[in-house]
């Protein structure tokens, strides 16, 4: 049980340190070009494409479900959207 949690946390740490090391990308590996340009994000910027629109109702559903169901977690991270600035 404990070991399982530690291995996973270590994996998450590795992810964090790798984010830090992304400036040291070897030039031999040619990076892939992002294929959705900032000016093509009109549909993605629409509120109906948001993973979660209103926080309080979402919080209420999560609370009801976590109290009544055994399964929990992995609720989500925001991304997509306008991509401005």
């Amino acid at each position, binding site marked *: 049980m404990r070991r399982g949690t530690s291995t996973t946390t*270590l994996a998450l740490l590795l992810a964090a340190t*790798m984010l830090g090391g*992304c400036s040291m990308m070897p030039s031999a590996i040619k*990076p892939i070009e992002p294929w959705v340009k*900032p*000016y093509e994000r009109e549909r993605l910027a*629409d509120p109906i494409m948001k993973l979660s629109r209103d926080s309080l109702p979402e919080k209420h559903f999560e609370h009801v479900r976590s109290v009544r169901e055994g399964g929990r977690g992995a609720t989500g991270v925001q991304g997509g959207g306008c991509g*401005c*600035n």
Partner: protein
Amino acid sequence: MNSFQRLQRQAAGVSGPMRVAFAALIALAATTAPAALAPASAAPDFTLHVMDGPNLRLKEQRGRVVMVNFWATWCGPCRQEMPQLNRLYEKYKASGFVLLGVNVDDDQRKAAEVAGKLGVTFPVLLDTDKVVSKLYDLSTMPSTVIIDRDGKVRYVHRGYLTGYEDNYEKQIRELLK
């Protein structure tokens, strides 16, 4: 066994697929920003249709300081920036300054509605086919390009935060001299 040794043991235990996943993460993390607009290079020429008006060609603006601002109705910082740009346009248009607002919406009626609501007086050009956006290789929304009287790109601003308009004003004044 101290905690460092334990950590070493755990590091060895990270499975193969996990390592591959993280290697992929590094590869994805590489951001590319080939600047098609190197300062002091000639500004790519284009012709676009003005909202409720005739076509407008960039080359015809030679002799004036041109600011090209790429915006969209769905972009929050763009809408924030517009009143500031309008103010700059009204202030310097008599001195040989022209501001072109290139809109990249799919629906030009939305562009007309928002431009009207924000009280925009500078010309709004419609780039529905994204031809000019591709030509200028926009990496951010909004993007603002300042071109001098000889048609050379002098400043490129990516994004908008409060206070950027003071910078714009300084650069416009410098080029108008």
